[in-house]
């Protein structure tokens, strides 16, 4: 079995460099044959694309997509400096 450390590094690079994703802020953890993706993105389509790219970069491993969607709320209280 490939060392999990290198699998995680490969998936992380793929997410950053693949034009379908270009996501730099996704945390990738590999435990045995399980890959965990964590972070925040703006829409569901991007969330699924990240999972697809991760699957391609880690064939044969089970990918858990734990990425959440950023909820962009209406502006709140202002800060007085």
């Amino acid at each position, binding site marked *: 079995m490939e060392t999990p450390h290198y699998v995680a590094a490969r998936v992380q690079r793929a997410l950053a460099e693949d034009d379908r994703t270009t996501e730099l802020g996704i945390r990738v953890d590999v435990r045995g044959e399980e890959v965990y993706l964590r972070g925040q993105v703006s829409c569901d389509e*991007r969330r699924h694309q990240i999972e697809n790219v991760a699957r391609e970069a880690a064939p044969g491993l089970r990918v858990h997509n734990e990425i959440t969607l950023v909820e962009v709320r209406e502006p709140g209280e202002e*800060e*007085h400096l």
Partner: protein
Amino acid sequence: MRELRIAAVADIHLGEDLRGHYRKKIEGIERRADVLLVGGDLTRHGTIPEAQVVAEELSGLPIPVVAVLGNHDYHSDCDQEIIDLLRDAGIVVLDDEGTVVPIDGVRLGVAGGKGFGGGFAGKCASEFGEPETKAFVRHTKEIAERWRRALKELDADHKIVLSHYSPVKDTLMGEPPEIYPFLGSYMLAEAADAEGADLFIHGHAHAGTEKGVTPGGIRVRNVALPVIKHAYTVYCLNGDHC
């Protein structure tokens, strides 16, 4: 002097899939703010079609919009075309320079640009060794020098530095310390502290925190969308009430 209401956001990462979404969130911004500052990473891949979406979302607002690019906006090597496209849409884009925005007789000076990395005092890269390392550090050094000049030349009542990269570690808390050198540089803070400013706005660190301060006492705010979780945040200068 009248209070200034500064709306700020960064890392909006727009693309075709988000067309129209951000605009909805900033409708009515003129009732809350006098100017909107956008701290880079306007797009995902730095392509022209994405920049067109940015122009559509940010143009035609009743208040001035001042923006800088971020590292994502450089990815397709179209940075200059993106700057031109946004400027044609009426957005003021700072590329290591300054501008003065008049707001009801108050002159708001904004200086800045993308910025760059290198790390923070005591744990930073030096202009030494391989050409690649020297070029990396020199890039930040030259940017900081241009910002220093831009700030000095600004004739304004208030000054704000607008950047993509961070000037301090404070607002990176939450990011892995190993990547701090890729998230900002103390040289950006040094330039602002040398010339003085009321506020330093940046983005880039999605997992960071909002508030920090430069060694010279300038308030720093990380307004990356995943950090502020609002369409923008409003900072009020010079007064208790907006």
